[in-house]
């Protein structure tokens, strides 16, 4: 059940590709609805797929921590002079780096499928920054939770619970104008919608700094908080 095993890396990459290929056909006509800023659904949907991949991948990284605890891998590391902080940061940053590479691959494939990136290569770099922060936020949260909960079942239930609504509330699928008002309020507090919003802007519109900068600040804040939370829980649970 580890995200590090090749089969999971594969599944985690294939799934978004299926979304890209399938949903972009199914919802092709959606762009005729008012509120869409793009006239290609693929253009609109690709940023959502990238963000979802990073979101799912990072939310589950706590499972790696649990597995390492079970297999004695963690204990073995804890018996060396490596600082506790670098162990937990290694776990979090390690899994996020894999996910960023995946995000880039999806971006590349989307581009081959015909997605125009309004901001070009610099936009891709900014996207890397955005998904890194999103990933750190969720991986930090998930790892901290893993340390608190230890047995995997509650963690699985909890992560499934939070990732589901986060996904739907996040207008990854449709523009916010088409969503009911309460969801629009909820999305203000949702890191997923902030990342989708800015990546979508980079792909479709260009540098909308008035959108991107606040999103970056919020994502950076959440990432910092969550990595601190994981580190704190780890320091608290180990000697």
């Amino acid at each position, binding site marked *: 059940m580890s995200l590090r095993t090749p089969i999971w890396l594969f599944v985690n990459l294939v799934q978004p590709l299926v979304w890209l290929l399938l949903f972009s056909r199914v919802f092709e006509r959606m762009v005729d609805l008012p509120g869409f800023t793009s006239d290609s659904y693929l253009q609109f949907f690709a940023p959502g797929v990238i963000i979802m991949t990073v979101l799912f991948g990072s939310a589950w990284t706590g499972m790696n921590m649990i597995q390492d605890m079970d*297999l004695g891998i*963690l204990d073995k590391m804890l018996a060396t002079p490596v600082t506790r902080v670098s162990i937990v940061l290694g776990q979090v940053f390690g899994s996020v780096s894999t996910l960023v590479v995946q995000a880039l691959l999806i971006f590349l494939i989307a581009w081959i499928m015909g997605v125009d990136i309004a901001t070009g290569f610099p936009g891709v770099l900014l996207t890397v920054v955005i998904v890194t922060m999103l990933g750190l936020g969720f991986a930090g949260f998930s790892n901290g939770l893993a340390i608190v909960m230890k047995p995997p079942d509650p963690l699985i239930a909890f992560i499934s619970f939070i990732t589901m609504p986060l996904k739907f509330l996040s207008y990854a699928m449709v523009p916010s104008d088409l969503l009911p008002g309460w969801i629009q309020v909820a999305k203000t507090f949702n890191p997923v919608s902030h990342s989708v919003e800015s990546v979508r802007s980079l792909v479709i519109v260009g540098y909308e700094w008035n959108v991107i900068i606040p999103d970056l600040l919020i994502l950076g804040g959440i990432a910092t908080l969550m990595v601190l939370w994981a580190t704190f829980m780890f320091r608290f649970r180990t000697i």
Partner: protein
Amino acid sequence: MDEPERANDSIAVKDLVKVYKGGVRAVDGVSFEVKAGELFAFLGPNGAGKSTTIKIITTLLKPTSGTAEVLGMDVKIHSARVRSSIGYAAQEVGIDENATGRENLVLYGHFYRLDGKTIRRRSDELLELMDLTEESGRQVATYSGGMRKRLDLAISIIHQPQVLILDEPTVGLDPQTRGHIGDYIRNLVQELGITVLFTTHYMDEADKLSDRIAIIDHGRIITSGTPQELKDEISGDVVSLTLTTDGASTSDGVLDSSREMLRHQPFVREIQEIDGDLNVYVEKGETDLPRILRVMDGNGLTVQTISLSRPTLDDVFLKYTGRTMRDEEGQRTTWARMQRDVRRRK
């Protein structure tokens, strides 16, 4: 006051107690010292508290009370320094399965802050020493249990620690591989002069390998000393008797009367009953064995098999606890019975 005395000890554990959440008293007042350059065995049945003690010494677990020192450093206060000076291989091999053997070694080399050149040189040496050179480029997932244990051992000494702590280095391996690992450990002590504390529940291993042994049961050390000292505590020999033919269980009446009869003989020191067999501890087996037979015959009690053996550590454990360690492991076979079976097969 006793500091100068203990300065020679690589490991000093005093009045250690560990109560787990939920109330299990896993370690219940353990004290022992391991001298520099010593090969020290921690022997005990499953659940005795060996791993718990080890985890406290390796800074992985906080003791409920008591102290543990490694090279004079308290494990709670100087945990970072303790970690740098010990090597540790846990009971469960905690190695990244997706990486190769060499990659794991290199990773731990970095954990111990060795430079790249040193890591490369020592990895080569250790892979050679552990007979893993050929497999070093393969994923650990493809390794056998024995290969993993050897790799784990290599990892635990990549930084040339002064003190090496091994929790069941041979558990779950076949006797031949166990013997190999034992040889590796002996070599390490002889060549590098390091101190080794290892746990085991194999009597013969503790006996052969270690300079000194502490026997632990239910979280307490029941006795300690050199293997010879321990066996000498059981002066004399052990005569094992089977009273019935295979399969049939000895009736309590026969057992009791045999015991009663033998107990009153002046040459008998102690009698233990294991699974319907009797272990009679006597002064001098060669002359006392025929005497036992005569007493039994004279009272109309039939002896099916009889054997004579020098005391083993198992007898030491038996003497202190009234049980055999093998019973604890859920195997009904006692040492005496195994000896008998071997004799039958001949």
